[in-house]
């Protein structure tokens, strides 16, 4: 995600079309006139099949579109009219009937409970907000419908902490990105997370593109980006030895950073939990009860929860959650992106984040993707950007990989053969293509952090600060809010023996031999680390969760060897039978039961261990 791709599958008609037709808030007499104009515009494109109306300050679109791309185009068109939001209820082919549903069986573990703040959604935004709020003496509940935090968009991105250059000047994205970029580095230090700032090279394909440098610098200045530089062709070649010969210099953005997005989310959630927040995994919000313009309770699969303030950080479901509170003033559309991870051996092949936008148009919605260094070192190729229905549709498609190969040529040392795996993520986008970070205009105790698409990860700490302030203000209406005594900014990151020197590693193992048993050979992950993840204050109990925390199964064999061992550790620690261990929570069980002969005796049984190890101690 070198530059933020906005829309790629659907080209915008022309750049003048991008300009808003109204930029200030729409007044009532204006509204009907503007809707009339929008209606005419829609009719010219879609005939009578699409209709626009004003619904409590937002534009509402209804009808049928010939394709999902057309539906999205209609939404973008409506967004230019300056209403509060665009509620796009157009139906399009290929849209599945998606419901916000719990994964597992219901229970009553949350029933009757009360929290000053309930945060809906355990992605990086929800986790960062929870952590920020623990600075105050509020009781906090973080609700996550999956079996782990960071299960969706927060683990399905490239981990880039953007510099803020690509965001549209004046947008919330631009402001939050630049602020977030500054906040992440000290935050990572507090949380014991890796953060690197390799910087980003926006390569020029042509001399004409290079001539745009002054305009790019002006944009960077306007966005408040922390530094930029013109690099000559020779300098790029010297600093990035494997770079394509087909470059004419670069726009260098030194503040671009990388981190592990899922580890960051876990660390934020763990730190929040350490400071007293309750993280409820597998807890899905099904509805809300309102009284006099306020939410009184959340209905979940784990019972009814009363809440003082509710934060909507529900990612790709944020419009649905807003609707539960009667505050559906926006719709999300889904822009899928696919990334490919290359083998760790690529770690030495590249020093900076590389991208080469196909046509360097500063106001284009069509930007690029590229080659991102992960914080672990592997190069990550991507992402693509395709408007695609499906809030949780992560199925990759062959043509997406074809698109990724285009980026590979930027680094001559890389090849598709180094690919370990590829994955998709879905960006939750509003039609305004900007974040929504605000207190609800209709519901007194609801705060939205919605439409947090790229650069949402980069922006997360800044968004969290502002949302926390809004929550504290809202909570101030019903109780006095004081700073929490004994708040701890830090988190003792679990040990990673592979990163220790030999003496320190030896000492660690002396304290706990499990750190000496390597379970995942590709990534050198020990039993001790896996057990730490399972026993975490925010426990990882499925294989994907353990993979995100420890990297077990993330390497070149992709779990071929360690899967059974990790299953056994989960079974041992949780008491589940091994076949009931899941990949990603209920419904993703790895096995269906025992074989005819039944499961083997547990590891550690002397007879089981000795039978083929002749002579071995």
């Amino acid at each position, binding site marked *: 995600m070198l530059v933020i791709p906005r829309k790629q599958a659907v080209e915008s008609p022309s750049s003048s079309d991008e300009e808003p037709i109204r930029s200030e808030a729409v007044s009532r007499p204006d509204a009907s006139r503007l809707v009339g104009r929008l209606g005419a515009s829609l009719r010219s494109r879609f005939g009578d099949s699409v209709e626009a109306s004003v619904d409590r300050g937002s534009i509402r679109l209804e009808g049928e579109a010939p394709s999902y791309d057309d539906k999205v185009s209609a939404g973008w068109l409506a967004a230019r009219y300056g209403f509060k939001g665009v509620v796009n209820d157009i139906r399009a082919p290929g849209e599945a009937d998606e419901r916000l549903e719990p994964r597992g069986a219901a229970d009553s573990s949350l029933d009757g409970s009360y929290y000053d703040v309930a945060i809906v959604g355990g992605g990086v935004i929800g986790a960062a907000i929870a952590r920020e709020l623990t600075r105050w003496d509020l009781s906090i509940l973080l609700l996550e419908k999956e079996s782990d935090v960071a299960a969706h968009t927060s683990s399905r991105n490239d981990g880039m902490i953007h510099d803020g250059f690509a965001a549209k000047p004046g947008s919330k994205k631009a402001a939050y990105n630049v602020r977030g970029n500054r906040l992440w580095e000290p935050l990572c230090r507090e949380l014991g997370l890796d953060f690197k700032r390799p910087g980003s090279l926006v390569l020029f394909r042509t001399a004409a593109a290079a001539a745009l440098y002054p305009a790019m610098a002006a944009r960077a200045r306007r966005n408040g980006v922390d530094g930029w530089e013109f690099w000559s062709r020779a300098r790029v070649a010297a600093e990035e030895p494997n770079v394509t010969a087909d470059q004419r210099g670069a726009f260098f953005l030194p503040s671009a950073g990388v981190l592990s997005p899922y580890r960051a989310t876990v660390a934020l959630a763990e730190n929040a939990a350490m400071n007293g927040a309750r993280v409820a995994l597998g807890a899905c919000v099904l509805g809300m009860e309102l009284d006099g313009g306020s939410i009184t309770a959340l209905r979940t699969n784990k019972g009814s929860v009363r809440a003082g303030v509710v934060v909507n950080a529900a990612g790709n479901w944020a419009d649905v959650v807003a609707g539960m509170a009667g505050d559906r003033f926006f719709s999300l559309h889904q822009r899928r992106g696919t990334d490919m991870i290359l083998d760790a051996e690529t770690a030495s092949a590249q020093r900076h984040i590389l991208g080469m936008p196909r046509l360097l148009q500063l106001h284009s919605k069509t930007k690029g993707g590229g080659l991102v260094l992960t914080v672990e070192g592997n190069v990550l190729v991507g992402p693509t950007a395709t408007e695609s229905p499906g809030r949780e549709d992560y199925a990759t498609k062959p043509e997406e990989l074809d698109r990724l190969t285009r980026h590979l040529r930027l680094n001559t040392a890389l090849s598709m053969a180094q690919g370990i795996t590829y*994955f998709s993520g879905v960006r939750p986008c509003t039609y305004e293509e900007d974040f929504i970070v605000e207190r609800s205009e209709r519901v007194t105790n609801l705060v939205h952090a919605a439409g947090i698409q790229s650069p949402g990860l980069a922006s997360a700490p800044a968004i969290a600060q502002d949302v926390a302030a809004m929550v504290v203000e809202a909570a101030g209406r019903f109780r006095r809010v004081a700073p929490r005594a004994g708040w701890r900014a830090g988190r003792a990151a679990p040990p990673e023996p592979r990163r220790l020197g*030999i003496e320190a*590693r030896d000492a660690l193992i002396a304290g706990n031999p499990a750190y000496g048993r390597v379970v995942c050979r590709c990534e050198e992950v020990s039993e001790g680390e896996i057990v730490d993840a399972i026993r975490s204050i925010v426990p990882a109990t499925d294989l994907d969760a353990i993979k995100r925390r420890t990297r077990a199964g993330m390497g070149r064999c992709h779990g071929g060897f360690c899967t059974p061992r990790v299953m056994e550790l989960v079974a041992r620690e949780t008491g589940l039978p091994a076949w009931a261990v899941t990949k990603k929570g209920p419904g993703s069980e790895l096995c269906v039961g025992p074989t005819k002969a039944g499961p083997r005796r547990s590891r550690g049984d002397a007879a089981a261990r000795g039978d083929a*190890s002749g*002579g071995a101690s």
Partner: protein
Amino acid sequence: MIRRLETDVVVLGAGPAGLAAACSAMEAGARVVVVEREERTGGILKQCIHDGFGLLRYGRQLSGPEYALRDADRFGSLGGRAMLEAFVTSASRLEAGGFELACVDRGGAFLLRSAALVLATGCRERTDRQVFVHGDRPAGVFTAGLAQYMINVQGLLPGRRAVILGSGDIGLIMARRMTLEGMEVIGAYEAKPEPSGLSRNLRQCLDDYGIPLALSSTVTAVHGGRRVEGVTTARVDGAMRPIPGTERDLSCDTLVLSVGLIPENELAKSLGVPLDPRTRGPRVDQNMHTLVDGVFACGNAVHVNDLADYVSESGERAGSSAAAYALAGPGSPSRVRRLSPLSAGPGCLYVVPQLLDLAALADVARADDVCLYFRSSSTMASGAVARLAAGDAPGAGGATLLERRYRALRPPEMERIKAPAGSLAVGPARPAEPGPGASLIVEPIEPEDR
């Protein structure tokens, strides 16, 4: 205090290659330390409960664990001890010669020094994404070896209704195994126009159970977000691209992949050992000595074998050679190699060894029969001639050093030629490659020529 151990030969991996290497090195008088990351020796054989092992080596059909037990018994009777659940975290070459390995086990971190190193690290399986199966990443997609481990070692049933992608031997064996466990195996799909597995496995594992094998067909996508709900299959063209319009959706909860094995050589790479791009294993001479002095390699780390017997054979050779190297000591004239390339000529997919040490061949005291392992690059159903020709250029018309005739050759079935050392006199010993060398040429025999 960090533990420090010193020995003559360190063997990495205690599968059939590593144990054979360890035993032969011990029999040659060397002190040996075996480092094994699992809790038991035997390597992948532990999970191979089917028979078919040992026909060449022991003249009888053994199961994998039985075969492994023979290795373990021999190893034990020689007084060998494997360091189990031990893992090498890094390897380095010492200035003064020899190697130092940083290792960990439950007892802590330790350093292991040796004069020679034998890499018997085996191979890993290619995964779904490496053969471009698309879709989400639900539970229910397993490599064949993983499914085999679950069923045979853990006693867990991975699903109810399976599709197999690829026709590698483990996949075929798993088709039978899953059927015997009561699973429904819908069929196996192979993108190549010919099966990848051994003929005996095609008969005994698919035909005998009525499991269909679709050739020139593949799985293009997996359906389901949490557990596999089905797959899409398609026919493929000559370039193995799916042919539009031939897609078929199948309902299943399990996809088992048997789409190839990749030698594990991360440690070899870190030591600067040059690899052969065709085998993806180290280039070795006839003594399984890599191009880095003192580093030997054997078994599936060198090239993917289809018989454990050949894996053991290469281990024996690597172990005795490593022992000889270690015991000779620095500066010994017997350590001086004169390497000449042995290349895969037309019709030959690859040949191991890729190098001949002419010095060893010329030394009557050390010269031993040379085992050449090769695969033909295409099916030669009506017969074939493998000819070792002097000269390194492809299609070299050099003198024929030896020749073997075959009734048929198929790429999945590795062949082995045991050549007397004297037959490989490929000219005067040259100091190093490139030299005139030799190449193995494989030519089909047309039916009328037979």
